[in-house]
């Protein structure tokens, strides 16, 4: 077991962090907003951790104290939240593809800024980021709790007033408006939640990877996160997690196929989009697990009676 973990610790922790990033995209998506902005907040979180730990905090020798990592997370959360509101209020008035494009622009602007700001190390970035742990596998102690907290948060959120408001907007923004829900404010809240999660993941990742530069958090990553959500399942909290875990592990599993693995990855994404429009983990699938097989129901023209989406009970 320990053997397995030393070999695969890095991979497993990467999988967990990827799943968390997928959730950071899922949060605005719950309110119907396709935001590709997560990599931007991830990058910011990482830079905050990198700068704070290499230039501001000066702990003594030995492993980097965990409480400082937690402080970095707090700072990253606050900065991400502030930036999310600032960017979100104008951008979230856009819908659909326009919003996605605005978030792509946001990420690219941040990337180019970070390439050129000396405090962020320019193109080279910041390295030698202090480590609270001795091996990369141990970062699971930070990553897994974060993922679990995020999952529980979202799972509970779906069953509360704000979660319902998210879904209402996702279903029909105009009708939600007419029912007393402030669309822009609600969308900004969803967007900010995703941003905060991404920022906090960034903090962990910066220590995990030991160096941080403008190549962390790019448009390419947002494609990956989008794939995790769309293929894993865009209608339940478990979907993005499964997608993130699976699709991060896949290139490793396919490692034997050398350069074919990316070709396969691309094909899988396309195939997934075509044949699994709701993703692999759908609400219907989940309710079958929960209630056991459905007793034979007469099919009624493709309708799925008694299946609910979103908050189950």
């Amino acid at each position, binding site marked *: 077991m320990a053997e397995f973990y030393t070999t695969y610790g890095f991979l497993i922790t990467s999988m967990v962090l990827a799943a968390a990033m997928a959730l950071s995209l899922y949060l605005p998506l719950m309110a119907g907003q396709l935001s590709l902005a997560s990599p931007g907040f991830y990058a910011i979180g990482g830079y905050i951790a990198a700068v704070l730990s290499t230039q501001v905090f000066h702990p003594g020798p030995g492993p980097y104290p965990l409480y400082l990592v937690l402080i970095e997370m707090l700072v990253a959360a606050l900065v991400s939240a502030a930036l999310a509101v600032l960017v979100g209020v104008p951008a979230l008035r856009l819908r*659909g593809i326009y919003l996605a494009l605005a978030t792509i*622009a946001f990420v690219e602007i941040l990337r180019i800024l970070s390439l050129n700001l000396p405090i962020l190390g320019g193109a080279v970035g910041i390295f030698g980021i202090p480590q609270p742990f001795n091996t990369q596998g141990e970062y699971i102690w930070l990553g897994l709790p974060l993922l679990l907290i995020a999952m529980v948060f979202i799972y509970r959120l779906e069953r509360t007033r704000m979660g319902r408001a998210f879904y209402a907007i996702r279903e029909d923004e105009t009708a939600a408006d007419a029912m007393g829900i402030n669309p822009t404010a609600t969308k900004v809240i969803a967007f900010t939640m995703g941003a905060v999660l991404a920022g906090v993941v960034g903090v962990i990742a910066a220590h995990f990877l030991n160096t941080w530069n403008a190549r962390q958090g790019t448009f390419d990553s947002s494609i990956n996160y989008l794939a995790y959500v*769309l293929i894993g399942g865009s209608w339940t909290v478990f979907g993005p997690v499964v997608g993130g875990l699976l699709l991060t592990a896949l290139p490793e599993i396919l490692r034997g196929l050398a350069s074919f693995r990316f070709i396969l990855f691309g094909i899988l994404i396309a195939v997934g989009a075509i044949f699994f429009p709701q993703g692999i983990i759908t609400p219907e699938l989940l309710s079958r697990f929960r209630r056991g097989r459905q007793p034979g129901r007469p099919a009624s023209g493709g309708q799925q009676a008694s299946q609910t989406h979103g908050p189950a009970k």
Partner: protein
Amino acid sequence: MTLINVWQNILNGLAVGSVYAIFAVGYTLIFSILRIINFAHGAVFTVSAYFTYLLTGSAINTNGTLHKLFTDGFGAPALPIKLPFVIALLVGGLLAGLVGMLLDRIAFRPLRQRGADPLLTLVSSLGVAVAMVNLIQYFFGAEIYSYPANPFGNIPAAVNFGTADTPVPVRTIQVIIFFVAIVIVIFLTWLINSTKLGKALRAVSEDAVTASLLGINTDRIIMFTFFLSAFLGGISGTLVGVSVGVAGPYFGITYGLKGLAVIVLGGLGDIPGAIIGGIVLGLAEAFVPPQFVAFKEAVAFLILFLVLVIRPQGILGRAAVVKV
């Protein structure tokens, strides 16, 4: 800034802008008919450059699988044909067009048939782009490819837009690209507005269901749109490859992101808008003051964000009326 500098900047801006423009035209054409952003456009742009390269009988680098395949099959790591550049350009474009049609058939049509969300089409096109780029890398390797010198024969390497004393040279290939951009726009505008085929295109773009009820074979029209977009994209890719060299399989993808800024700026789906957007972006980048030159790359995305927030329909688009 002296007048000569301004003039130089304008010319540089136009040159770079025309590259953006010819990339964007195919991009926006797909959007105008299908309301989707085809991220695989960048890959098609790239693949055509490689096709043309092969057709001129040039050699493949050792890292590409084709190197071995061709050496075994043909005795040399190249195709045993050596087409004149302009022919190779057109054939390369045609092949790219076929690839475009193939992509529609396997990646987009199934989604259309399922009435899928445009987001899924976006993701599918991304998956296709990833697969294609890596296929290119597999076959050709990741190194830089350059076309044989003087592809257009014995024409001067540069055109002088200044005077004899103060020359303002612009490379001939850049002038060619500029004119090709104009020609493409004129051709497309003619096609869409003055031909029966164009009418069918417009009908499908307005309402595909009604169009098919009126007897228009929408699937064929859409396939043609993909062919045309890929053909134009392909020609553009090769010309740009001649101009700047083919830096690797990701050569077209980097234009893909800036291309988004161009088509939004010009108005999503608006074909003359793609040219105007490209030129405006090129000029904007050319006039970035020297102290900010490091941030030049961000200009495109700043423009993209601001346009979206202030005037999402772009320069030439009409404001969409949302029906309740």
